[in-house]
Structures are given as C-alpha cells and as structure tokens.
C-alpha cells in the first residue's frame, strides 16, 4: 500500500515537472494578452505566421475572455503587465495611458498606415498609445430573404422603419430579435439612439459633460429618445426580457425575426447557426431626415504595448505591430478572423455582404462615433447599461435614468 502511494506520488511529481518545466533559451518570448474569444485559433495562426518570419521572437498567447479587465488590473497591480495588450478602444486605452502603463506609439511608422480617422480612439493628450486594429459597427442586421418575401425595403428613415415593422408584424414575423435579459445590448441601443439624435452636438456636449456643466438630457429630445426605446420594445418578442444573446441569435437565424439591432460581431454567430442566412447591414434610423441616418461604427479592438517591458521586449513587440500592417497579416485578419482592418487600402473583398455594407458606410464617412466608449467607464458599465435595461423592464422613468447617469458622471469626473 505504502509503496503504491509513494509510486503514485513520484509519478505525479514527475508529471508536474514535465508539464511545469520551461526550457531556457535565448529567444525573446513576448506575452500577448487578448480578450476576443471568437478568434482564439486565428490569433494562433497570426502569431505563428509572425514567428515563422522572425524565428527569434516567440509570442505566447493568453486569452482571458469574460473577466479580461479584472484579470488585467489584478496582474498590473501586482506589477506584471503583459508585453502586448489587446484593449477596447477609447476609455480602456485612456485609463491605462493615464496611469502610465502604456508605451507612447506616436512616432511608430505603423501608425501612419492606419486610416487617420481611427486614431481618435487611441489618442490621449495628443499622443497615441495603441494601434487601432478593427472597426465594428452596431446597427440593424436584417434578413434579406425575409425582406424580399414580404416586399419591404431596408428603411432609411424612422417612418419607413415604422412601416416596415408594421408590415412584418401583420405577416406574423417579429420585427426585432432582442435581448433584454442581459444589459449590454440595450446599453448599446440607448447610446446609439442618443448619439444619433445628438448628431453634431455630441462632441461639444461630451466636453461640457466632462466639465460637469451638462446633463445627459441636454443634446437630445428626451421624449423622442425614450419613445424610440418604447418603439424597440413594442416591436420585439414579448419574451425579450427572458432572452439573451443565444436566444436572440436563434430567433434571428431561424427566421422568426427579420432584424436584430446588434454589433456586426453577431453576424458570424447567426451565420454559423444557419449558413443559408442572407443578410444586409444598415444604420438604425432615428429621425425622418435620411441624412441623420449614420452607422454607429468605430474602432473596436486595439493593440497596446506595456511601457514597463524591457527595451529588448519593447523592440520585439513593436516589430510585431509593424508586421501586422503587412499584406500577409491583413490577409489572416480579414479572411480568418473576419474582422474589418483599420489599415489604409486593406483588401476586404472576400468578406460577406454585411461587412461590405459596413465598409461602404465607413468609406462614405456616414458614421457616428461610439459615444459609449467615450463615457467614463463607470457611466457606461453601470449607469447606462443598467439604466436602459431598467427602463425597458418598467423599473425606471426616463427622468430617473437620466438623473442616475448624470450623478455617476459627476462622481467620476470629481475623482
């Protein structure tokens, strides 16, 4: 008995050494921390292709999908920043840049290769702290076949959208597949409508807001804003409060609903559920002036470098960023990761129709920035998402939602 126990113990220890042991080598080994879990295997392809070109640099990938910010902060608080960090645009980049964690990339040649309009999302106090990597849009993903079947056209004004919904409802098709159980999508919706209605007033308002001199209600007609939320709810499945992303995909992909208001990242999931799906992508119209109808699209993910890496590692990491702009890397990014790149003149012809639609709006300049990413983090994560959800579930009045957003905002800028 004892011998058996000892043998097992030895075996266990030996296994542990084999698994835990790392062989020392002269290579530069970089850590890349990322959160986009839909491209886990694709990231591996990307870094493998890089290492094939630069054999002395090895990149070890670390995917932390859902609690990425919590893990990243805990690591950094322990003085352990990854060399390359995938960050969400705007607020996350600014937050780490302000704290001094990120290396200044303003003078890197690769920054000249991205579309200049995207640099806003990574510029903090005049310096660029991350490389914008992909552009994503939030709008209406619609089922082209259903639209054709019921003889409706993609709407360009709010009135047209209303009549499309009325027609679909009359034919027994749910207009919108929605998810109210989880708060992020309705948060996007509130911010999207708010931004569209604010139009030109958005940036001056944000500035005033950050000085503590404005209210969330200021740039928009509150009644109009919340009546669009009501409209959205009235044209969603009656069980939307019990639906999350999964059920939303299923309802849309299965043809029970003709549209979903979502980020384009949802298209891939719907397409994999039903490969025959034939979709288009349009902005959500909020007014009756077609000129106001712009796509809610902006930079989604970026790559930043840790300022605390050693010089050698920083150099290797910059080499990686530089390489990302090469045709070889862009090809992987587009064809395998299915993400719209930010690099000038990137070839996206191989992508599906909704992505082409996104690129069309980007190229014609008909886009609105992702205002929610510019709100202070707590305003977005707490007040906006929860406020939108509580309004849709009948728990809060428009005044209460706005008052709470204003209050959290004031608290955040007072810090």
């Amino acid at each position, binding site marked *: 008995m004892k011998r058996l126990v000892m043998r097992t113990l030895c075996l266990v220890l030996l296994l542990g050494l084999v698994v835990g042991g790392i062989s020392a080598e002269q290579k530069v080994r970089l850590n890349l921390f990322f959160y986009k*879990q839909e491209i*886990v295997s694709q990231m591996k392809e990307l870094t493998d292709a890089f290492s094939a070109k630069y054999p002395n640099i090895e990149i070890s990938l670390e995917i932390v999908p859902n609690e990425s910010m919590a893990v990243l902060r805990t690591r950094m608080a322990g003085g352990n920043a990854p060399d390359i960090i995938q960050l969400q645009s705007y607020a996350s980049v600014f937050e780490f840049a302000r704290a001094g964690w990120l290396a200044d990339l303003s003078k890197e040649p690769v920054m000249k290769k991205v579309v200049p309009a995207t640099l806003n999302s990574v510029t903090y106090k005049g310096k660029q702290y991350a490389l914008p990597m992909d552009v994503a849009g939030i709008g209406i993903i619609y089922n082209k076949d259903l639209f054709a079947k019921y003889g409706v056209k993609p709407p360009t004004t709010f009135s047209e959208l209303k009549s499309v919904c009325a027609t679909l409802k009359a034919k027994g098709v749910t207009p919108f597949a929605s998810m109210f159980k989880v708060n992020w999508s309705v948060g996007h919706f509130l911010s999207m409508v708010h931004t569209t209605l604010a139009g030109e007033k958005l940036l001056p308002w944000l500035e005033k807001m950050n000085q503590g001199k404005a209210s969330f209600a200021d740039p928009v007609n509150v009644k109009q804003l919340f009546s669009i939320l009501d409209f959205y709810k009235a044209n969603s499945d009656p069980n939307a409060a019990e639906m999350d992303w999964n059920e939303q995909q299923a309802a849309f*992909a299965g043809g029970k609903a003709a549209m979903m208001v979502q980020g384009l990242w949802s298209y891939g999931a719907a397409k994999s559920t039903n490969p025959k799906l034939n979709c288009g992508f349009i902005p959500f119209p909020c007014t009756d002036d077609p000129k106001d109808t712009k796509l809610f699209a902006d930079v989604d993910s970026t790559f930043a470098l840790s300022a605390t890496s050693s010089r050698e590692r920083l150099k290797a990491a910059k080499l990686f960023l530089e390489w990302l702009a090469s045709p070889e890397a862009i090809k992987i990014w587009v064809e395998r990761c299915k993400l719209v790149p930010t690099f000038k003149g990137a070839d996206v012809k191989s992508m599906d129709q909704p992505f082409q639609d996104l690129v069309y709006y980007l190229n014609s300049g008909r886009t609105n920035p992702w205002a929610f990413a510019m709100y202070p983090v707590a305003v977005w994560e707490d007040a906006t998402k929860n406020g939108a959800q509580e309004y849709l579930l009948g728990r809060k009045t428009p005044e209460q939602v706005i008052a709470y957003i204003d209050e959290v905002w004031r608290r955040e800028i007072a810090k």
Partner: protein
Amino acid sequence: MRGIDRWTPSGENPGRRAATKRWAAVAGQMLLAFFALIFLFPGFLTLLNSFKTNTEIKMNPLQLPTRLSITNYVEAWREMEFPVVLANTFILTSLSTLGIILVSSMAAYALVRYKWRTSWVLFLLFTFSMVVPFQAIMVPLFANAKNMGLLSVLGLVPIYVALGCPMAIFMFHGFIKSVPEEIEESAAIDGASPLRCFFQIVLPLLTPVIGTVAILDVLWIWNDFLLPLLMIPGRTLQLAQYRFVGIYRQEYHLAMASLVLTASPVVLFYLFMQRYIINGISAGAIKG
C-alpha cells in the same frame, strides 16, 4: 437493521401495519426517485446535447440528437489540449487535496487535544478566513504569489492548501472531539510518541471525515475558476472549457462535450470515494 421498511408507527394491528409499511416504502421511493430525476435532468441534458450540433442546441435543447457522433468530443479534446490540461488539473487537485488533508488533520488534532487558550485562539483565527470573500484578498495574493515565483501549476499547490485548510480544520475539529481520548492515553503510556499516536490511531478513525473533506476539496479545486484564471490562465480544465462560451462566442456543442470530458473524472472519483463515507458507519459505531 433499520430502513424504510420499519418507518411505521408501532402499536397497530399487524395486517394494517404491513400494508402501511409497503405503501410508505413505495411512496417514499417514488418521491425520492422523482426528486433524483429533477436533479439528474441538467446532467442528462448536457450529455444529450453534447452529441448535437450548435444549431440544434440553440433551436431546441430538449430534442433528442439526430445522430450519435463524437465529432464534438474530438474537436473539444483538440481545442482544449485535453491531455495537457487534464494532467495539470490532476496534479494540482491531487497534491493540494493530499496537502490539505495532512496539514489540517494534524493541526485540528493539536487544537483539540492540547486544551490551551492558544488552541482556541488559533481555531478562531483559522475559521476567520471562511467569512472573508476571496475578492478581498485577490489583488495582494496575486502580488505575493508572483513575488514568490508561484505562478505555475505546482506553485498553486501551497496556495490551495492555505486557502483550503480552514474549512478542513473546521470539519476535522468537529469530529476529533467525538473520538475518545482513552485509546491514545493508553498508547502514550505504552511509550508511543504523539506523532505515532496520531498517524496510527487517530488518522484511521477519521476515514469518514477524510472522505468528506477529500470530496469537497477535490470538487472545489477541480472546478475552481477565479484563482487559476489569475495565476495560470488557460492551464486548467475549467479555464480551457470556458473559452467555448462567453459574451461573443457561444459554441455550446463544444462546451457540452468539454463539460462531459471535464466532469467525468470527478464523477468517477466521487463514486469511488462514496465507499469510504459508507465505511464510516462502522467507524461511527466505535465512537459511541
């Protein structure tokens, strides 16, 4: 001899008693079986859905699979790098649990048998950690672990032993109290050292508690999420299967298959360990 067939009030006439007896037994078993079905349902669904495609799962999770193919398992196995993470998780769980049992049974024994004020204070100090949410120590714990170079599978073992021993000490403490001291005293008079006393006399008596502690700790460490996520991301089974389901990726077919792969070792372990809990019946009889 005890059991459901004796669950009847005494003092009635024998014929009616027999009828009531049978009725009670059948009703009790039916009820229990029904309950068990409710409890089994999610596990059963998991198994069922692990054979279906993602589309089938999303459309109707209740439907029976149309095919019986193991492609999901093959893909999950490959994407999780199953053998490696299984080895990691196995090493981590087994070493940590062994450590917890050894370290805490010793400590609990001393805290019960040495009736000093210090013992009581230390016992309170240990139980204190059970009221502290992990989030309160998460950030400093990570900094300390990193500092000591413990960000590896083996490095996590002492951390698990430290975090697991309060609960184990608490349970051992409760049960050692009911072990009579006489045997140890007579052994001590025969010249046995306290260490020998403990390992040869007390430890064997603790089998049912050891079984319970082992089961609870194995389950905890095997299924733990936040600690390995911080320290050794992606290298345990739980973390490896977490990649299939998140905000923007929900591949339930792979998640279900990976769950069956991940859970089956602990289920087997539990079924195996049950015997030791049952053996406790006789151990309990000695105590009385």
